[in-house]
């Protein structure tokens, strides 16, 4: 007799509400799950909590013990004291080191024998203060410049003497010597020697006062006194220099395990297939994993830093690391900000690398060389001759290390620091885009002969639009290489290069990065060029509107530049310098390199490629605003003028984005962009002539209100024409209506 059939599951509730795929809240919930899973793993807890709690106290105890034993044993370190002359050196040697030491030993010996009846000599020999050097290892030498001898690190302490005498000129009688103790900020040997000298001078003082009291029955003046003079250490000699290296080690330590576990670990556990079978975009999944890895890296680093600070504080080591002032709130904030940057970068890079791995073992094999590679730039901070420049500011990893060094020593150049931060963020985005491309791809998922070339594998069928990960990869590459390209051009040109060379070079770099690179990417992704870059015809009305906008937007741009100048007046000086610079260049070259090439290439990239891909996944206005933001940021970092370009470029980007969306084509935007740029550059080029004709203002004067009103009116007509031209058929970015389910 057969068993009764099992009951059917209850019917599903009708009409499930499905959450949009690119909903940020959903991505954050995914991140929360990744974080929850990681933080529950006891291996994470060991790295996060136990290591810092155990390691730093043990290390510091070991360090302290090492110092004590090194100073105490015969043949230990030799300490050098600088004096002004041979006589001064002899006096210090005789009066302080020998006499003081003997007095201390005698005093200790007497105390010890009184307590235990032991041989005073033996006890005295054993009972030097812990960590204090023995007198025979302290040498006094004459030097010509006391301050320099200490600040350069050649001597641990310098002593300047001032002798006060009384009596007759023929028979002067020394009554008081003032010792000025000069030592370097954050120098442990220096501070130990200060204590060494202090103790001995005090012993000599006490002995002489007692003797005087016994022989004369009264105590007179104190024979010796001492003052302190702290010499600033050069930046490269502070232990603060090691902070970048420590930040690298800490963030990598924190990020390694979660990065492996959340990528290669998914595959090893067998959860990757289930995950990839779900309709969740890989970029979203990687974003969630990235958030989790960054969080754990930050937590680990924060725990390490806290444990390190507490240990250093409890052991009295903070002044050696952070100088006499100790640890300030500003330093803490700077370290936290640097920590975020380091964690953001390393988490992305580690995720990218481990996404290629099919197992924990393979991931570890990839990461060992990466970690060695990552630590080596940390050593650059110890080389004071290595200074941040434009090329180093965009060199991955080195830029962060040098930035950290310069920021902590208060010597950072804001321009180069900004370049380093932005390029690091771009490299992190690039790494995430790379990881999203690889993670869970069929080759990685099933291990079928996968290789790095899978990244650039062409799909079997044409796509309707570029993929978001491809666009992110291309954007990060273009932005990063633009800076490198600019730096290389400057290096190639040298100081004597002509301006023409710079403008032609810049145009070539723009063509390569913003036209050729996305074209290659689109072809590699099998996206037809017309679809990838929105190359479509547009109505004459649309072109007329774009032309009017191109002719009328310059006063607005001019006013926005002046507004930016209010925030930072120095920026206007840079604008003036650029305006003066272009007056010597031929107008044809200017039109080509500043108007036509950027108009074509930037519209091709920002409105054609970027806007099209982003529009696939979000609303039109979100895509327009995001693209405009990237457009604005690009103009901030492509030139040395920096923030002054942001507002005008952002505003122009919004208008260009609207024109492209409304007309369904990049062509009207190219016209608008070229006319706008051309007008601005020609007005700058012929400013003197225009002023002679009573037309035009200097780059720092406001546009007359009447002109502004007229320009606004023309711009509105232009916008109205663009709006009236309407969306052409087939310009809709979203895929056509989905097939009706059967």
């Amino acid at each position, binding site marked *: 007799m057969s068993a009764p*059939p*099992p*009951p*059917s*599951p*209850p019917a*599903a*509730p009708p009409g*499930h*509400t*499905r*959450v*949009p*795929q690119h909903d940020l809240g*959903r991505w954050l*919930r*995914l991140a929360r*799950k990744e974080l*929850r*899973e*990681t933080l*529950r*793993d006891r291996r994470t807890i060991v790295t996060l909590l136990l290591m810092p709690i155990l390691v730093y106290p043990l290390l510091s105890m070991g360090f302290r013990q090492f110092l004590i034993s090194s100073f105490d044993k015969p043949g230990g370190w030799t300490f050098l004291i600088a004096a002004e002359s041979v006589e001064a050196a002899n006096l210090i040697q005789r009066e302080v080191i020998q006499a003081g030491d003997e007095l201390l030993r005698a005093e200790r010996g007497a105390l010890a024998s009184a307590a235990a009846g032991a041989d005073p000599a033996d006890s005295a020999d054993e009972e030097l203060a812990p960590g204090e050097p023995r007198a025979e290892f302290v040498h006094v030498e004459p030097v010509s410049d006391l301050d320099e001898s200490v600040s350069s690190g050649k001597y641990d302490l310098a002593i300047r003497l001032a002798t006060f005498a009384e009596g007759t000129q023929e028979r002067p009688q020394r009554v008081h010597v003032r010792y000025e103790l000069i030592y370097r900020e954050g120098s442990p040997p220096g501070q130990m020697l200060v204590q060494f000298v202090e103790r001995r001078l005090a012993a000599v003082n006490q002995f002489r006062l007692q003797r005087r009291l016994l022989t004369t029955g009264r105590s007179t003046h104190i024979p010796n006194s001492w003052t302190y003079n702290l010499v600033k250490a050069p930046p490269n000699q502070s232990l603060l220099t090691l902070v970048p290296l420590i930040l690298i080690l800490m963030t990598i330590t924190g990020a390694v395990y979660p990065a492996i576990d959340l990528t290669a670990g998914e595959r090893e*556990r*067998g*959860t990757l*297939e*289930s*995950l*990839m*079978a*779900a*309709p*969740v975009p890989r970029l979203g999944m990687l974003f969630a994993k990235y958030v989790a890895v960054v969080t754990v890296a930050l937590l680990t680093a924060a725990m390490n830093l806290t444990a390190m600070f507490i240990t250093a504080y409890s052991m009295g080591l903070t002044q050696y690391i952070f100088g006499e002032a100790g640890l300030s709130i500003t330093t803490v904030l700077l370290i936290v900000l640097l920590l975020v940057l380091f964690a953001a970068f390393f988490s992305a890079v580690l995720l990218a690398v481990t996404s290629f791995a099919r197992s924990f073992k393979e991931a570890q094999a990839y990461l060992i060389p990466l970690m060695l590679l990552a630590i080596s730039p940390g050593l650059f901070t110890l080389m004071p001759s290595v200074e941040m420049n434009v090329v180093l500011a965009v060199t991955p990893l080195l830029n962060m290390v040098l930035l950290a060094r310069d920021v902590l020593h208060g010597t950072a150049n804001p321009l180069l620091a900004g370049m380093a931060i932005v390029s690091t963020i771009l490299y992190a985005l690039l790494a995430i885009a790379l990881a999203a491309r690889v993670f869970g791809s*069929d080759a990685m*998922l*099933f291990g*079928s*002969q996968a290789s790095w070339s899978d990244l650039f594998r062409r*799909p*079997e*069928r044409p796509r309707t639009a570029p993929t978001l990960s491809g666009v992110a990869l291309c954007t990060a590459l273009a932005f990063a290489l633009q800076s490198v390209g600019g730096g290389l051009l400057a290096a190639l040109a040298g100081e004597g290069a002509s301006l023409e060379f710079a403008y032609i070079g810049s145009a070539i770099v723009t063509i390569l990065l913003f036209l050729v690179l996305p074209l290659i990417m689109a072809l590699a992704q099998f996206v037809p060029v017309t679809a990838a870059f929105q190359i479509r015809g547009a109505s004459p009305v649309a072109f007329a509107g774009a032309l009017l906008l191109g002719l009328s937007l310059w006063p607005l741009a001019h006013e926005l530049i002046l507004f930016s100048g209010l925030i930072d007046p120095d920026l206007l000086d840079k604008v003036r310098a650029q305006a003066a610079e272009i007056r010597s260049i031929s107008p044809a070259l200017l039109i080509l390199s500043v108007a036509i090439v950027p108009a074509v290439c930037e519209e091709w990239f920002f409105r054609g490629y970027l806007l099209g891909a982003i529009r696939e996944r979000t609303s039109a206005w979100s895509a327009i605003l995001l693209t405009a933001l990237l457009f604005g940021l690009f103009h901030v970092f492509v030139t040395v003028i920096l923030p002054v370009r942001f507002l005008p470029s952002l505003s122009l980007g919004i208008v260009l984005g609207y024109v492209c969306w409304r007309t369904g084509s990049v062509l009207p935007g190219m016209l608008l962009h070229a006319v706008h740029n051309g007008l601005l550059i020609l007005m700058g080029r012929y400013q003197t002539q225009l002023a002679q004709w009573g037309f035009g203002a200097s780059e720092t004067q406001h546009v007359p209100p009447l002109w502004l009103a007229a320009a606004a009116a023309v711009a509105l007509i232009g916008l109205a024409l663009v709006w009236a031209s309407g969306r052409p058929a087939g310009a809709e970015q979203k*895929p056509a209506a*989905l*097939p*009706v*389910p*059967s």
Partner: protein
Amino acid sequence: MISVVELTKRFASGGQNVLAVDRLSFSVSPGEVYGLMGSNGAGKTTTLRMILGLVEPTSGFAEVEGFRTSEHPDEVKSRIGLVSTSAGLYQWLTPREMLLFFADVYGLDAKAAAQNLERMVSWFDLYDFLDRRCGYLSTGQKQRVNLARSLIHDPPVLLLDEPTRGLDVMGSKVIFDFISAARRDGKSVIVCTHRLDEAEQFCTRFGLMHRGRLMHEGTLAELQAATGSTTLSEMFLAGLAQSGPQEDAA
């Protein structure tokens, strides 16, 4: 409804161009359980992965509920529940957390996710270990959580890849019940297995694969009439004897 049309997959392996699936065509209607059978390496799992969009076909296409995998992968994925014995669980999450996570991944809002979770807990009897971490569950309990995961978004299509591999009699029974219930519920089901004896118990139609090709297709009665064999095992062995050397690996 699942339609597979001229589906082909070639890939490189050890410098060789291997034809894993060769112009495969079949369809599965709602309420039908299609047994895709064959020996190891026949191309069954690759076929499932192409239907799901995890592997891109070299040519041909698959459609699920009218959506073509290559064009609307997310629409297809949201309509499929995948059950695989090789699928693991997140050992540091509880079944409740994991099921809600997958409900979120499949785009269900919080209310629908809670309702579906309740159904799954009831159907697979997960009460006793719903809040215990997956790493501490027994093999049978893990299997039930995995089945619940595949159904949490109430998909109309189920793909089962060797669902009984490594399971004992009781574990296999849970799977049989699951498939029977899915069939009654009107779902389109494909079961990949090399356990021919098992397949006879719950499949309504069969496709016998060998070296990426479909050798025979039909109901048991149709296959018996066509091949003259009584059981699937006999049919399969007869088919193997007839097939020639592998011509396609070049």
